[in-house]
């Protein structure tokens, strides 16, 4: 505990040593009290909403539990079942697909659009708004819009493609195109990443470009050797948050499958169109939701949650450790 300026200025010199010590101790306790008071809501929150459920998830993952009767200890059975569960393989593959293809595409397109807008001299305000706006569209609304626009029969996109003599794909109705359709939806809503990249690109010191230009570099080389290294911390940041988002990917896939399958289903029976079509949009969180809260195999869902936790932790750690090699922190940050 280092003394704050306030305690140092209160008569410290004027008091006898014992009183001084007591005054200091009292002040220290007061400060601790203040800190504890400020932190208290969050301390409760972290304990009740993170600490406890984390421990509990691990415990429940070793049990059979349906939220009706008490959890029954079954050891590693839930984890062993994962190797025989055909669904979880599909879900893991789909989620990995997102991380391997969708995340790089998102980062690249956000970066590309940011560079484009940074180059444009007139109307940059207009372009900023246009590229950011879709990110605001509520995910459910955006998904509904895309399922309609990309509907294979008479959706506007396929109608236009037909006019151009192209037979449009089946989009959300086909197992090959459903994930790319979701990626299109994701790129449309790239706004947040775009704004972050734009700020970073505009922040690159002008003199770096100028000296690179004097060295006779072309625009592409300047992008590679000036822009990229300078904004590498932002690239790292966007990759990490995109990966985390990909792990939690739920709403768009769930709604798209629900609407595209066109079943007259209530929120209840998603089993009918789970991952429609043919499990191609069955992502890990959707399966977890289905197993835990529709089938009420809560022990198994907890095992899936523990696996997700380990994966999230591992992936973040790997990226952060690796990043030391390619992320370049400029002077002030370090």
């Amino acid at each position, binding site marked *: *505990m280092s003394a*704050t*300026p306030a305690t140092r200025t209160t008569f410290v010199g004027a008091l006898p040593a014992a009183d001084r010590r007591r005054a200091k101790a009292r002040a220290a306790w007061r400060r601790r009290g*203040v800190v504890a008071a*400020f*932190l208290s*809501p*969050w301390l409760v*929150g*972290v304990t*009740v*909403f*993170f600490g*406890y*459920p984390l421990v509990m*998830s691990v415990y429940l993952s070793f049990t059979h539990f349906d*939220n009706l009767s008490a959890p029954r200890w079954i050891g590693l059975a839930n984890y062993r079942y994962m190797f025989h569960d055909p669904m979880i393989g599909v879900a893991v593959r789909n989620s990995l697909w997102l991380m391997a293809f969708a995340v790089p595409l998102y980062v690249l397109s956000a970066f590309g659009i940011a560079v*484009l807008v940074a180059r444009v001299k*007139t109307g940059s305000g207009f372009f900023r*708004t246009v*590229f*950011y706006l*879709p990110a*605001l569209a*509520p995910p*459910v*609304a*955006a998904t*509904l819009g*895309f399922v*309609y*626009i990309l509907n294979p029969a008479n959706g506007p996109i396929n*109608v236009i493609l037909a006019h151009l003599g192209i037979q449009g794909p089946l989009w959300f109705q086909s197992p090959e195109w459903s994930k790319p359709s979701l990626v299109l939806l994701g790129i449309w809503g790239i706004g*947040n990443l775009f*704004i*972050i990249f734009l700020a*970073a690109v505009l*922040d690159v010191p*002008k003199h770096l470009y*100028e000296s690179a230009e004097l060295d006779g570099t072309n625009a592409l080389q300047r992008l590679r050797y000036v822009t990229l290294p300078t904004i590498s911390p*932002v690239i790292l*940041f*966007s990759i990490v948050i995109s990966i*985390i988002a990909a*792990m*939690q990917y*739920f709403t768009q896939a769930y*709604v798209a499958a*629900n609407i595209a399958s066109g*079943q*007259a289903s*209530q*929120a209840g029976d998603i089993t009918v169109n789970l991952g429609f079509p043919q499990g191609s949009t069955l992502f890990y*969180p959707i399966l977890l939701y289905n197993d*835990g*809260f529709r089938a009420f195999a*809560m022990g198994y869902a907890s095992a899936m949650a*523990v696996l997700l*936790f380990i994966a*999230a932790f591992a992936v973040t750690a790997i990226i952060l450790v690796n990043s030391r090699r390619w992320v370049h922190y400029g002077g002030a940050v370090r």
Partner: protein
Amino acid sequence: MTTAPVTMESQAALARRKVPWTVRRRRLLLSVADHSVAIAVALMFLLPFVFIVLTSLMTARQSLSPDIWPNPIRWRNYVDVFLTAPLLRWTANTMVYCGLATLGLLLSSIPVAYALSRLRWRGRQVAFLIVLATMMLPQQVTVVPLYVMWSKLGLVGTLWPVILVTWFGDAFSIFLLRQFFLTIPQEYIDAARVDGCGEFRILTTVVLRLAKPAIAAVALFSVLYCFNDYFLPLLYVGQGDVNTWPVSIGLSQFRNLHQVQWNLTMAATLLVMLPVIVIFFLAQKVFVEGITLTGVKG
């Protein structure tokens, strides 16, 4: 734009050196190319909005046809939407959710962010790491025990589980506020301490006044988050009574309720997008500053 004068200056300097005609032509062509690409991509980004608006004005039969332009234009869809589904009820639910959650989030997160940025105490770094970790943690990891907890408290079937959580500090908001509080000059805080202010007074008078933009951004993000939130509301009220649904759940079930046609669905979709877009145009600056704060200073 702070960069404008610099480039103009350098352009002027270059002009004095008589830029060769070929270079100038190349620059012009490049600029034309940049703008054309930007316009083309911008049109693609606007297209979905256009199609949604057009479809929302079609007749039911037309929305299933290959037509792109509505004929006749059916404004009545926007009345029918409210007759087919309890959209107003859902909006009210969402507003209660957003309001209570945002209020609780601000009240609980601001002091934590202050303690993490402007008070010195042992364990501060550890606490900040925990904030970051909880921010990164996928929701699904903790969801099973939380569901069990809320169901024991009899709150499944209401939106209270999603509201109450925010009253105990929200990691993202704490992070964002902390980043901003760190930028407040120490002199202001020292001056208040010398004047005999307690930490609480410093927070409520000095820091809150200086941090208004950041607080506005956090409040805005919270409202948007609640408005869009889907996974947890689906979990807690998705199976329950239609009247307990927020807008997000209602909209996703809209077509299933009565086999509603696409024209009405798109009208509802647009109505749900509208408030967010209006808020954006009213508070554009707050948004952009807030987002940059998350990325650049992080």
